[in-house]
């Protein structure tokens, strides 16, 4: 069975994959991954797991033409503000790697798919997430 690429990607047995944030009930800050203290308002025990939305808007990006050896290029490294809160980073797919084709605030949705065929040392495959424009 495929594993989640990061801890905040959840693969429920019955139901669709989703991203999980932890939201501070005191100040509203949203974090990826569990934590005990809010680094924004310093409250303790105020962080609760929340399901993040699968849609958002492109905040910033870079088109990567040179990466580490063995990594396929080019790709678009994208920062997306999710509708309802939370900011995540991932690859923007189904868009030409051309600044003319990439618009700030373009609406995107999160797609869950195999992690580009990458496997770990034990041969496990992984599920990752990608951003795709909403036409």
């Amino acid at each position, binding site marked *: 069975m495929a594993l989640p*690429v990061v801890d905040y990607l959840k693969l429920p047995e019955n139901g669709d994959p989703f991203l999980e944030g932890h939201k501070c009930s005191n100040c509203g800050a*949203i974090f990826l991954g569990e934590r005990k203290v809010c680094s924004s308002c310093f409250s303790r025990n105020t962080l609760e797991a929340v399901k993040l939305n699968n849609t958002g808007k492109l905040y910033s990006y870079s*088109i990567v033409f040179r990466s*580490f050896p063995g990594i396929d*290029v080019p790709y678009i*490294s994208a*920062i997306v*503000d999710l509708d309802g809160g939370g900011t995540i980073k991932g690859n923007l797919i189904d868009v030409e790697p051309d600044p003319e084709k990439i618009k700030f605030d373009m609406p995107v949705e999160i797609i869950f798919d195999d992690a580009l065929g990458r496997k770990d040392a034990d041969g496990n495959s992984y599920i990752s997430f990608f951003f795709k424009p909403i036409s």
Partner: protein
Amino acid sequence: MSDVFVLGVDMIKFGRFPDRTVPDLGAEAALLALDDAGLNIDDMEAFYCGNLGQANAMVGQRILQEIGQTGIPVVNCSNACATGATAFREAWTSIKAGLYDVVLAVGVEQMGSGLLGGAGAGKGIPKEGLLGSGTMPAVFAEAGMEHARNYGTTFEQFAKISVKNHHHSTMNPKARYQIETPLDEVMNAEMISYPNTKLMCSVNVDGAAAAILVSEKKAKELGMARAVKVRASVLTSDPYQERDLVMPDVNSCTRKAAKEAYEMAGLGADDIDLVELHDCFATAEMLHYENLGLCGDGEAGKMIDEGEVELGGRVPVNVSGGLLSKGHPLGATGIANIYEVCTHLRGEAGERQVENARIGMTHVIGLGSACGIHILEKA
């Protein structure tokens, strides 16, 4: 509390020295700075040493093994690209605290090749190129594109910063490169991470720089003729920002440090005659014109378009050639930029001298993040 003065400061010419060692490069810079101050290693009461690549390997003590084992306290610091500024600031702090009157600070680095940044392996599978990019050119490209998003900043404007800094470096014999690099060459160079081409990325080099800091009492005793007063020394970490987890923040820690530095110095941005700031990528320099208050928000593009940050302009930035052409040996950078500003305040910068420079600022960012700012004044 005593005022603190830089009495000696120097750097080695940045370059590639594969046959030399980190302590060897640091020792050379330390000796240059000691000579500049007219002092010897046995005059030093403490030593703060900045290095990143061998942070667990007692670099400071190994430098003393090359230039004199006097038994003084040695503190080895690492703080990403703010490492050198952190070592300098720890030296400043120790004099401020009244512990010492004469202290040595060294920053030194030997660099590898290729892209910096986390490959992001951790557990499981590599995340690079899967969850975006963690390479430094991409991370700083994303920070620059945030500026483009807010103010319409263009690829060409970012590229002009690199043209300027490469031009400045033609007048700096200690820079890695002294090569004019016209706009078309910068824009047509290999694209690494849009909008940063290869010529808009800092140069990986080996380097070392050192400074001798003294108390006011000691400065008066030894002579003020070439002394430089430290008007402000500030270090910040990154305050919480909502996109922190995916977008390392170099802006808020710089703004906080600049505000505190101006307050400590009792000065404003208008008083600054030259700035050496952290142009690790051309996109980064653009952000810091505004972060340091050299112009209003949204005016950085105009600063580069109108030549205000060139030598001869309103507030020359990175007249040394900056990290883009002088080079960026991580742990050495924070003291090398102090050397540059001191050299102008002393009126010894030759062809690239900023005329009548009396007050200058240095700025570095260590991603993760740390920001170090110093304001220096001709004594």
